[in-house]
C-alpha cells in the first residue's frame, strides 16, 4: 500500500505548516497553509480508489452474475467518459432525477439483481458502501478536465434544483443552522477553512468540482454523498438518507450553479 506513506509525509508537511509560534504573523500562517495545500497536489491517494473502482465496474456480481458495464449514467449504456460532469439528470426509466450514487444503486438493482436496502442503510465507512465510494472515484475521474454541463431543462430537473435551493436556506435544529449559515456569504472562513459561497457559480464550483475527494486528515476517500452527509451532521440535523431526494436536491443546486466550470475530480482535501 502506497497510501499510508503518502499520508505520513503529508502529516510532516502539516506539522511544518502549523509549527508557527503564537507571535507569528498572520502572513506566515497563510503562507504555511498555502504550502501545505500545494504539497497535497503532489500525489493523490484517490488514484488507488479510481483503479479499484474501474475493476468493480467490470466485475460480475449479484444474483444475475452481471457487471455494471451496461449501466446507463445518462450518456447511454456503458458510456462513462464525461457522464459525471452531466449529473444529476433526469432518467426516463426511473422517472426521477438521480445523482451518480442513486443511479448506481438503480444499475446494481436492475443489472445485477442486488437488493440495495442494506447498502443504503450501511455507514459510509462500512465495507458495504466501499464499492460505491470506489465507483464514484472512478466515474468522477472519467470527467476530469471536462466542463460541468447539468441540464435544468426538464421540469423535474428544474424542480430538483429549486427544492435544493430551498433546502440550502432551510434553518432548523438546536443551532439554527442552514447550509446558508456557513455557505451564504462570500469570502468567509470557519476556523482556517475557506467557505465557498455556494449560491454563486464560482463558489458552487469550488465544492462541486472537487468532490469525490481523498481526505488526508481522516485517510479516507469520500464520495459526494458522504461529504453532504457530514455537512448535515455538523449542521446538527438528523441524518439525510443515502441517495434520497434531499441529497440529490442539494447536489442539483450545487451542480446547476457550477455549470461551465471544469471538473477536477477526484480531489484531495485536508
Amino acid at each position, binding site marked *: 500500500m502506497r497510501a499510508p506513506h503518502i499520508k505520513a509525509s503529508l502529516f510532516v508537511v502539516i506539522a511544518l505548516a502549523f509549527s508557527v509560534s503564537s507571535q507569528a504573523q498572520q502572513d506566515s500562517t497563510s503562507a504555511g497553509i498555502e504550502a501545505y495545500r500545494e504539497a497535497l497536489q503532489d500525489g493523490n491517494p484517490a488514484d488507488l480508489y479510481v483503479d479499484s473502482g474501474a475493476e468493480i465496474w467490470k466485475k460480475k456480481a449479484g444474483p444475475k452474475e452481471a457487471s455494471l458495464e451496461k449501466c446507463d449514467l445518462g450518456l447511454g449504456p456503458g458510456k462513462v467518459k464525461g457522464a459525471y460532469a452531466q449529473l444529476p439528470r433526469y432518467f426516463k426509466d426511473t422517472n426521477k432525477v438521480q445523482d451518480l450514487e442513486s443511479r448506481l444503486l438503480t444499475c446494481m438493482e436492475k443489472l445485477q439483481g442486488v437488493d440495495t436496502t442494506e447498502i443504503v442503510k450501511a455507514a459510509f465507512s462500512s465495507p458495504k458502501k466501499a464499492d460505491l465510494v470506489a465507483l464514484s472515484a472512478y466515474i468522477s475521474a472519467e470527467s476530469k478536465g471536462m466542463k460541468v454541463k447539468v441540464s435544468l431543462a426538464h421540469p423535474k430537473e428544474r424542480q430538483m*434544483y429549486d427544492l435544493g435551493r430551498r433546502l440550502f436556506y432551510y434553518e432548523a435544529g438546536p443551532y439554527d443552522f442552514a447550509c446558508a449559515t456557513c455557505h451564504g456569504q462570500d469570502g468567509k472562513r470557519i476556523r*482556517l477553512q475557506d467557505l465557498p459561497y455556494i449560491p454563486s457559480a464560482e463558489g458552487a464550483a469550488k465544492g462541486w468540482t472537487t468532490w469525490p475527494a481523498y481526505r488526508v486528515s481522516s485517510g479516507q476517500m469520500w464520495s459526494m454523498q458522504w461529504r453532504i452527509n457530514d455537512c448535515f451532521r455538523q449542521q446538527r440535523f438528523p441524518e439525510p438518507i443515502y441517495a434520497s431526494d434531499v441529497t440529490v436536491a442539494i447536489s442539483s443546486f450545487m451542480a446547476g450553479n457550477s455549470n461551465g466550470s471544469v471538473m477536477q475530480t477526484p480531489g484531495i482535501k485536508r
Partner: protein
Amino acid sequence: MMTFKKKTTVVLSLLAAMTAGSVLAAPPALPKDGSWGSGAGDANFDTMMQSGFQSKGIATTERLKQDPTQKLCSNPTTIYSAKNTALREKLQGENEASIKYPSNGNWLGNWKNGEKIAQSGKGLTWSDKAGEANGGNCYNCHQITKEELAYGTIGPSLYNYGKLRGNSEETIRYTWGKIFNAKATNICSLMPRAGAMGVLNEDQIRDLMALLLDPESPVNK
C-alpha cells in the same frame, strides 16, 4: 525577486479569475415574490424533507420542525420585506423575553474555563452523546484572543472586547443577552441562541462572559 514573484502570481490569479468569470453563467435567480419555483412549494418540499431524513443518535427528525423565527429566517427574499415588519418585531420580542439573566447575581465566571468553552466545537451532532457538555463553537466564527490564529470570520472580531466597551452594567447585560439569544437584537443573526436553545448552561455563559469582559482575560490584554 519576491516582489516580482508576487506580482506574477497576482496577475496570473487575476487572469484566472477573469477567465473563470467570463465562462460561468450566473445561476438562476430566486423569484422576487419570495416563492421557490413552481415545483418547490410547501407540499413538495415537506414530502422531500419527511422522506429524506432519519433520526440518528440524539439528532432526531423532531429537529426538522422549525420555530417561527427559523421559518422567517429561511427565506432570504422575504426576511426584511415590508409585509414581515410586524412579524419581525413580534419574534424579536419573543426572543428577548426568552433571555434568563443570572439567577445568583454573578455575571462573570472564570475566563480560563471560558477559553476552553470557546475552543470547543463539540456537541449535539448525531455522533455526540446525550448529557455531555457542549462547546461554544466561538472560535469557529470569531477572533477572540490574539494567541489563537485559527479563528473563523463569519462573526466580528471580539479581540479587546472588554477593553473597548468597558464593563458598565449596560454592557454586561447586553453581552449576556447576545450569548443567551443573539436573535433578540438581530432577528436573523447567524449566531446560535446558545442559552435559549439549551446549548450552554448558565455557568458556561458566565465563563464566556469572563473571557470577554474580565480585565485579566487575554482578550483584554
